[in-house]
């Protein structure tokens, strides 16, 4: 394979994994935008979605339906999980506690979901049946293009929803000013629950994209994926929706390129095992140069 083809291949791979990160990062950024909470359990929602796929894909196949339709079940399962976590764990803490206690509750929910999954399904990885099996296109995997396409469609749809629908506008209003939103007649807790439902639903779509590629589910799969998506959200500017999408794609491409080129470029001194370290270093550098993230703005408020 010549150099250019390899490079394009790596960019496309980067876009694939990046679109998975972008969808997860959207969930982080939406929740942060609306209640200023880093939902550390968000990564584990991907794991919940992946187990939902593991169980429903065979049912879909047995029923003679396309395997990917299992994603609708995963979306519902994830949305319910997200709303329950918000209602049972975060809302009571938000009413009484500080931001710090909410953050610790989020870490606790993450550990709880990981351990619950281990208790229920065991620690060994589960194989998921093939979800997509597309032919090669121009020498690239068709599955990759499909993953990128799903990511793009979901991101565009999400942006239109937030910009133009009444519920999307209410989400923006609540994220800016909860008291004023109440005065408008907006049910603030309802909109927060909706935000969790949508963010978790996006995580379910991300698990479809991920599982279609790697065919594997474990109870810990969400932790690294979630961490990288969190880095993506911060990189793009936490709380800023287009920032999460951009951050996800950037992280995906950086990871893919560093995996491919870091060993040859350093004469084997740094191996591709360091690609995660490079991803996190990029975050540190960007935050040093632009603390609010790539798309973050420090707008002065008019009084």
């Amino acid at each position: 394979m010549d150099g250019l083809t390899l490079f394009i291949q790596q960019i496309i791979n980067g876009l694939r994994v990046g679109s998975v990160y972008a969808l997860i990062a959207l969930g982080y950024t939406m929740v942060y935008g609306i209640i200023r909470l880093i939902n550390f359990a968000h990564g584990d929602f991907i794991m919940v979605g992946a187990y939902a796929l593991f169980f429903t894909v065979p049912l879909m196949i047995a029923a003679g339906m396309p395997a990917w339709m299992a994603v609708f079940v995963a979306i519902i399962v994830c949305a319910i999980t997200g709303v329950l976590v918000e209602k049972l764990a975060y809302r009571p803490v938000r009413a009484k506690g500080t931001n710090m206690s909410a953050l610790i509750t989020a870490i606790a929910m993450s550990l709880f979901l990981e351990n619950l999954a281990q208790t229920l399904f065991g620690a060994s990885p589960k194989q998921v049946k093939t979800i997509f099996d597309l032919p090669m296109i121009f020498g690239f995997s068709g599955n990759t293009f499909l993953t990128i396409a799903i990511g793009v469609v979901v991101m565009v749809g999400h942006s239109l929803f937030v910009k133009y629908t009444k519920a999307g506008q209410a989400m923006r209003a609540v994220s800016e000013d909860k008291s004023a939103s109440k005065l408008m007649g907006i049910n603030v807790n309802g909109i927060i629950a909706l935000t969790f439902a949508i963010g978790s639903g996006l995580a379910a779509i991300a698990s479809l994209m991920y599982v279609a590629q790697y065919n594997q589910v474990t109870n810990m799969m969400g932790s690294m994926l979630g961490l990288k998506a969190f880095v993506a959200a911060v990189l793009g500017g936490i709380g800023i929706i287009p920032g999460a999408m951009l951050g996800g794609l950037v992280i995906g491409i950086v990871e893919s390129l560093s995996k491919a080129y870091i060993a040859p470029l350093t004469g084997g001194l740094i191996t591709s095992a360091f690609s995660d370290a490079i991803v996190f270093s990029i975050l540190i550098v960007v935050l040093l140069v632009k603390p609010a993230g790539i798309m973050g703005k420090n707008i002065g408020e008019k009084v």
Partner: protein
Amino acid sequence: MLSIKDLHVHYGAIHAIKGVSLEVNDGEIVSLIGANGAGKTTILHTVSGLVRATSGTITYDGVNLRATAPNKIVSLGMAHVPEGRHVFSRMTVQENLRMGAYSLSNPEQVKQNIERVFKSFPRLKERARQIAGTLSGGEQQMLATGRALMADPKILLMDEPSMGLSPILVKEIFRIIETLHAKGITILLVEQNAKVALSISSRAYVLETGSIAMAGNAAELMEDDRVRKAYLGV
């Protein structure tokens, strides 16, 4: 129309409102005047449900507001223009107005209301697509008022509409309040600028450290020596 009886509000250990009773009748402009920290804003927040009272009753058209969720109060016909405007500064003027009509379900009516607000505030129409945070203070006050009108309120709670505005703009805002009143909207006005507030009100209450110190006809209060000394600076 709006009736508050023996209202008590606490912020933790602080007893902010100590047994306030007041009435607003259909078609009136009633002002609540008093110094900074007297509890004027707290009373409005308690009426709108943002702050919960410790005891007392608040009824609006026979409905017990203390048992009504804040997001349901708007649909009863009460809108609140908060102190400091609180426009959604990252949203456009038009989106802000849409949020004001959140309680309405008919999109046609929302459109009509936007046209009506644009007619009353031509400046907002010129800036319909502008981000609200970039408006001047006076324009933001117009937007906050227009946004409250989007819900078709029968009563408007206005908190310090003159705050931070130049004397010319204060005049304009109060002219707008009088126009709204002439259109049949009842108004409960909270103001530190007692002179202007009393000049357009039918009745007024003077609040001092959480209690009503004086109440009565606005024109008579304007002549009262204590009011003149403490609030009118004469």
